[in-house]
């Protein structure tokens, strides 16, 4: 996943959803996590050497899960002042 592309990634979330998420609303938090899935995938990409000895990239599902959980726990503590 190209990180330069990810800098322009737009999660397209309403201010209301963000506000509800910071307030601890589970549905809103899930919506935020879903909106950031492409960014999570980009951050979970690791390099490895395949069977042919070539270096390639893949999305590590363990990292994806870990990042989702971290985000869910972090959102209610955000200081965005929403």
């Amino acid at each position, binding site marked *: 996943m190209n990180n330069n592309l990810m800098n322009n990634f737009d*999660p397209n*979330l309403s*201010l209301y959803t*963000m506000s509800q998420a*910071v307030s601890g609303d589970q549905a809103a938090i899930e919506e*935020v996590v879903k909106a*950031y899935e492409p*960014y*999570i995938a980009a*951050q*979970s990409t*690791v*390099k*490895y*050497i*395949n*069977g*042919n*000895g070539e270096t390639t990239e893949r999305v590590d599902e*363990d*990292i994806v899960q*870990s*990042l989702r959980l*971290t*985000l869910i726990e*972090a*959102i209610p503590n*955000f*200081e*965005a*002042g*929403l």
Partner: protein
Amino acid sequence: MFDAELIQQLKQTNISIDGEKTKERVKELWNTTSKEEKQTIESLAGVARATVYRIYSTGSISAKLAVAIAQTLNVNPYFLTGEADEQEECTDELLEDLLKKHGYEKKLAADRRKNRRKAPTSSTPENKADELQKTADELAEQFDREVRETLKTAAEEYKREHPAPVAPSPVVPEPDMEPDISEDTLISDITRAFLDSLTEDDMILLLRSIQLRAKSGLPGTAELSEKLKLLLLS
């Protein structure tokens, strides 16, 4: 144009220089003025209808009525006082000039200061909407920044704590490389003991395994299979 607050602070003294012209012009204008405009003039000047009627009975006009009539009916205030003979239009410059001429310079300056102070709080709905949009954008940006920082930091920590295992590069024989089956290699080291322990069944299994790997297309195994068959036939 001035608001009622300023106009009502103006004095009642006569500023007409030609009573006859004032009397005649105000009467003519008033007779063609609509009911709403008359009410506007009265509320701007803070006077009763009788005060207006006095103008065209006496020919004297105060600054407050001259300004109220001029800006409501859009006529040159000097036309009302008899100093100009063209009705023309009412402008801010003409009104200010008239008031300065009659000693209201300080009141004008105070009015300007007051309007400047009011300006930021009396923002238009469009300005308020812009300000709200700006605030919303800033909050959304901060939220986005926090999400990205959280994810990036967590990903870095995870990768640091769980370094990716270095996959061993499989030994892939070069397609044109002959398998090293020299006697020295076969006999050397622990190979001899291992080979000695192989049963006939083990050998058959190994051969089948090589054939399967060759069929699946693993590089180098087809050639190896052929070599082994040749060896067994020789």
